[in-house]
C-alpha cells in the first residue's frame, strides 16, 4: 500500500502554440489529475482530439507540460530512470526494413540496455508466444500489419518493464490474433506489470482493463473501475481516481438493478410505487429495472416486496456496455 503509484499526474496541462507569425494557443490537456496503481490494467478512452496521445507523450517525455507535474514509478517525468523501466508500443509502428523480426527485437532490446545475447535469449520465447517464431528470420518488410503489431508488442515487453504503454495494440489484427494478445496481456498483468492501454476498441478495453479514464476535450471526465462505470447511472465529471467530484457525490451515485419477480401485478406495483422503474409483465413473471442509491435501499425494497407477498426470483445489477456508458458520459459532459 505504501508503494508509489506507477503513474501519477497532478493538474497536468498542455497548451500547444501554433503558427510562426500569428501565434495562437491550442489547449490539448487541462488539469488532468490521475493515479494508476502498480499492477493495474488501465484504459484511457476519448474521442479523436481528446488529448489521449498528448497525455501519453507527456508521460514519455516527448512533449513538455505547460503546467502540472507527472511522475512515473516515482521518478519525475522525463527521466531516463523511468524510461528504463517502461515499454512502449506506438501507434503505426515503423520498424526499419533492413531488420528481421529477431534482429529488430535484439536491436530494441539493446536500446533498453540489454546485451545482445540477453536480448536474443529473451526474444525467442516472446516470438513463440506471439506466433512469430516461424517468421523470426524473415525481413520485416514481409510482415503483415498484425505481425508488425505483435512484433511491436514483443519489443515493448522484452526488457521486462514495470509499466507498458500500449497504443492501439490490436490494430490490424484478426480475431484470433487479438485473442492471443489478450491472453498475453493478461499473463503480463498476472506478473504484476502495469499496463496503460490506449484504444478505440471499447470491447477490448472492457475485456482487459481494471479501470478506465475518459478524456473529453482535454479534460478528465471520469475515472472509475469498469464495474462501476458500467453499472452506475450517469453522473457529472469526476477528477479523482475512484471517486467522484463534489460534496454530493456519494448521494448522487446510483446503481441500476434488475429484478425478476413472481406475484400479483398489483402487489408489485404497490410495493414499487415510491420509485420510478420499468416493468415488464410476461408469463407470470415480472422484470423490473430500477435505481437504488445504496445497500440499505436494496434491503428495504426486498422487505417491501416480501411483505407484499412477491417472490424474488432474481436480483442483479443491471450492466450497460462500456460503449453505452462512454457515450452517455461524453454526451453529458457536452451538455451545457
Amino acid at each position: 500500500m505504501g508503494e508509489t503509484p506507477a503513474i501519477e499526474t497532478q493538474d497536468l496541462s498542455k497548451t500547444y502554440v501554433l503558427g510562426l507569425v500569428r501565434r495562437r494557443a491550442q489547449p490539448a490537456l487541462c488539469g488532468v489529475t490521475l493515479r494508476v496503481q502498480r499492477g493495474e490494467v488501465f484504459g484511457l478512452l476519448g474521442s479523436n482530439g481528446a488529448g489521449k496521445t498528448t497525455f501519453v507523450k507527456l508521460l514519455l517525455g516527448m512533449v513538455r507540460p505547460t503546467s502540472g507535474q507527472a511522475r512515473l514509478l516515482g521518478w519525475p517525468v522525463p527521466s531516463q530512470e523511468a524510461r528504463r523501466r517502461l515499454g512502449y508500443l506506438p501507434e503505426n509502428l515503423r520498424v526499419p526494413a533492413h531488420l528481421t523480426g529477431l534482429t529488430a527485437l535484439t536491436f530494441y532490446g539493446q536500446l533498453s540496455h540489454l546485451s545482445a545475447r540477453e536480448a536474443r535469449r529473451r526474444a525467442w520465447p516472446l516470438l513463440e508466444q506471439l506466433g512469430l517464431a516461424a517468421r523470426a528470420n524473415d525481413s520485416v518488410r514481409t510482415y503483415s500489419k498484425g505481425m508488425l503489431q505483435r512484433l511491436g508488442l514483443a519489443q515493448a515487453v522484452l526488457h521486462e518493464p514495470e509499466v507498458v504503454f500500449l497504443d492501439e495494440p490490436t490494430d490490424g489484427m484478426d480475431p484470433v490474433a487479438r485473442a492471443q494478445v489478450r491472453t498475453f496481456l493478461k499473463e503480463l498483468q498476472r506478473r504484476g506489470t502495469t499496463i496503460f492501454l490506449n484504444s478505440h476498441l471499447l470491447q477490448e478495453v472492457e475485456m482487459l482493463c481494471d479501470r478506465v479514464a475518459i478524456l473529453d476535450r482535454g479534460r478528465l471526465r471520469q475515472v472509475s473501475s469498469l464495474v462501476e462505470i458500467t453499472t452506475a447511472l450517469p453522473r457529472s465529471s469526476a477528477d479523482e481516481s475512484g471517486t467522484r467530484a463534489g460534496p454530493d457525490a456519494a448521494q448522487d451515485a446510483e446503481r441500476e438493478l434488475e429484478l425478476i419477480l413472481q406475484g400479483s401485478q398489483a402487489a408489485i406495483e404497490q410495493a414499487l410505487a415510491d420509485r420510478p422503474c420499468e416493468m415488464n409483465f410476461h408469463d407470470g413473471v415480472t422484470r423490473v429495472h430500477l435505481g437504488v442509491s445504496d445497500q440499505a435501499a436494496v434491503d428495504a425494497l426486498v422487505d417491501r416486496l416480501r411483505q407484499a407477498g412477491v417472490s424474488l426470483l432474481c436480483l442483479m445489477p443491471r450492466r450497460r456496455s462500456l460503449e453505452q456508458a462512454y457515450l452517455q458520459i461524453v454526451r453529458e459532459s457536452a451538455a451545457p
Partner: protein
Amino acid sequence: MIRPYLAILNDAVREAMASRVLWFTSGLVLLLLAALAPIGYQVQPATELAFAELIDAPGLLEKLQVDHARGTPSPGQRIWELLAPQERQRLTQLAKDAARDGRAAVRLHQALREALNGVIHRPDLYDPAAWDREALPREAQELLTRPRASLSALELARLNRLLLQTPFDRHVRSRGGQSVQVTYGRLASDPLPFSKRQLDELLAQWVLPTVVGWIVGGFGMVAAILVTSGMIPQMFDPGSIALLLSKPLSRSGLLITKFLGGCAFVLINVTLLLGGLWLIAGWRLDCWNAGLWACIPVFLFMFLVYYAVSALAGVVWKSPVISVGLTIFFWLVCFAIDLSHDLLNDLAMRPQRIRQIAAAEDTLLTRTESGVLQLWDAAQQDWQVLRVPGRGGRNLPLAGGLVYHAPTQSLLLVEGLQTPLGPLGRMTLYVARAEDAWRPKEGPLVPSSTVGLLLTSDRQVLAYGQEGLFRLQGSPTSTGRSLSLLGLNVPLGGGAEFRPCLSEPRISWEAPLAAAADPREKKVVVASGNRVLLWVEDGQGRFVRHAQHTLPGPRPKRLSVAMAGPNVLVAGEQGPLWRLSSDDLAVRQSVPLPATAELQQIAIRPDGLAAALLFDDGRLWKLDISSGGPMQPRQVHAGQVTALAWSEEALWVADEPQRVRACDGPGGAVQAEYAPPLARTQWLFHYVVRPLHLLSPKPRQLQQTVQYLLTGNESTTLPFPVADPTRLTRPRDPWAPVRSGLVFIVVALTAACLYLERHEF
C-alpha cells in the same frame, strides 16, 4: 551506458550492408580496379630524346649546320649528313620562322627531336673520325668495343644516344641512364623522361590524388549524399521517433550516433577503393604508399562535412528531398566560394604579386609574378606597367633575373619561354634604360637554362645556370650585327655576349641551384644540390674555385643563398639556415627554420651584418648578425610579404596587394611607402571573398591533405629538378581544411542537437 549507442552504430552498418546501392557502388569500384589492374611499368636504358631533354633546339640546329659547313669530320657534320634533304630543308625553314613566331619555335623543337630520334636508331651513326676528339662516357666506350652486329636494337640506340648527347651537352640534357615506360597489358607508352623514383613521386603527388579526388571526392560524394540523405529524416517517422524517444537515450546522443552511423556506407566503399589502389600501385608499380590508407579518414571527413548539412536539414524539415537539395546547394556555395577565391587569387591577385624589387636611384622598379615590369609613378601614386615595344603589348614571361646596372643606368632582366620542365627556346637579356623611360629592349642572348643574373662588386654582369657561370662581355646596352646567309644567322660581332668565366670547363651544376655575388668583393657563391662552392676572381677575369662545403642532410628541393661582408647565408627550403664564412665557407652557425613554412628568399645587408628571411607563407624574419654571437631570428611580419631586396639605402619589403615599403636599419622603421589604391577586384578579394573563404568549410581543399598524406610534403612541387622551382611550389597548410571542416561539423551538429532537444514530437 554506451550500449544503446553502440547498438545504433551496429545497426547502421547492418543497414549499409543490406543496401542494394552499396552492392552496386561496390561493384563499380571493383570494375574500376579491374580496369586499372593491368597498368604497370618497365625500366629500360634511355634512348630517344624526350621533349624536355632537348634544351636549345635552335642552338643545336645552328651547331649542326655550322659543323657541316666546316666540312671536317665532327659529330655535328655526321648527324646533319644522315638527315634527309627534305628534313634539312624543313628544319632550316622552321629555324627562320622561329625567330619571329613562338609557335614555329615549338614546331622546330618537335621536328628536330623527331629527326634526332630517327638518327638514334641508325646503325651507321658512329664514325670514329667524327668522335675521336670527344670524351665518351664509359658506357659508350664499352658498347663500342663490341661488334656492332652483336648489339641489340636497344643497345645500339643507347650507344647512339650517348654519342649524341656527349658533344652537345649544352643542347641535350641527360636525365640519367634509364627511362620508364608505362605499360597497360601488352601496350607500352613512349619512354618517359622520368626515373622510377620520379615516377613514384608523380604518382603520389599528382596521379593518385587526382584519380582518388575525382572518383571519391566527386562522384563518390554525390552518391553517398544521395544514399544517406534519408537516414536522418526516416528516424522522424511518427511510428519510429516515438519508439526511439521512449527509450532511455539522450536525444543528442541518438542523433550523433545516427549521424556517425551514416558513415558506414562511405567507409566501406572508400576502404574498398583505396585499398584496391594501394594493392595495384604496390604490386604493379612497386609504389607501396601507406598514405593511401591514411586518406580513408580524410574522405570520410569530407563526407561528414556534407552529411552535417544533410543531417541538420533532416532534423529541421524531416524530408530526404530537402536534405539532398540543401546539401547540393551547400556544395555549390562552398565550391563557388572556393573557386572564386582560387580564381581571383590565381588570375588576379597572384599575378600581381611583386616578386622582385630593384631600387634604382630615385626610381622603384618591380617585377610581378606574371613577369610584368612596373615602375612607380609618384605623380599618379600607382604602378605604371612597362611594355615591350613591337610585341603587341605582351608581358615579358618570367625567366628569373632582375638587376640594376648602375654604370649604364639600366635594368637588366632575362626573358625566355619557361616550361615547368625547363626553358624552351632561347633566352635573351632585356635592357630597360632610364633614358628610354624604362622600356625594355632586346639585348644579347643569354646562355640556355639561365636561372638568374648577378652583379659583381665591379659591376660586371654575370649569368648563372646549370651550365655554369657566364660573364657579359661588353656593355649590356650595345647590340651586335649579324648577317643572314643561306638561312643562317651569322653574327658579325660588335655586340655584348655572355662567355664562360669559370676556370673549370664543362661545369654542370645540378638543381636546385642558387647563387649570390658579394656586393663589395669579387666573389660568387653557388649553392648546387648539397654543395656550396665559393668562386673568387683571379684578376684575369676568371673565377676560380676557392672553397667548397657540403650541406648535411638530404638534398633540398629549393635553395636560397646570400653573401655580403664576412657572411654567406645558405639554406634549403626546410632549413636549417647556415652561416658560413665568406673566406673559406667554414661553418659559423646554424639556425633552425619553422617547420610549417618553407624558406623562399634570403636578403642580406650589403655590409653582411643583418639579413632578412622570407618564407612562402609570407612571414618575414630578421636576423642580426652584427654581434657575432648566436643568430636570434625575430619575426617582423606575420604574413603576406611577397618579395625582399636589400640595397645600400634600405630594406625593401613588398607585401599584399602591391605595396612596397622601404624600412630603415635594425629597427625596421618605415622610411617610405609605395601603395597604390585598391583596384575593384582587389577590394572584392580582400573584403568579401577572402573572409567568406576563411569562414566556410573547404571540402575541395581536402585534396591538399590527401597530397600531404601521400607525399609527406607540405608543398606541391614537380619531382624534377627545375630551373626555378619557386614557380611551381605552392605552399599549403594541409590541415587547414580539416580545421575549418571540423569547426563547421561541430557547429552544424550542435545546431541540430539544440533543435532536437527543444523540439516537441
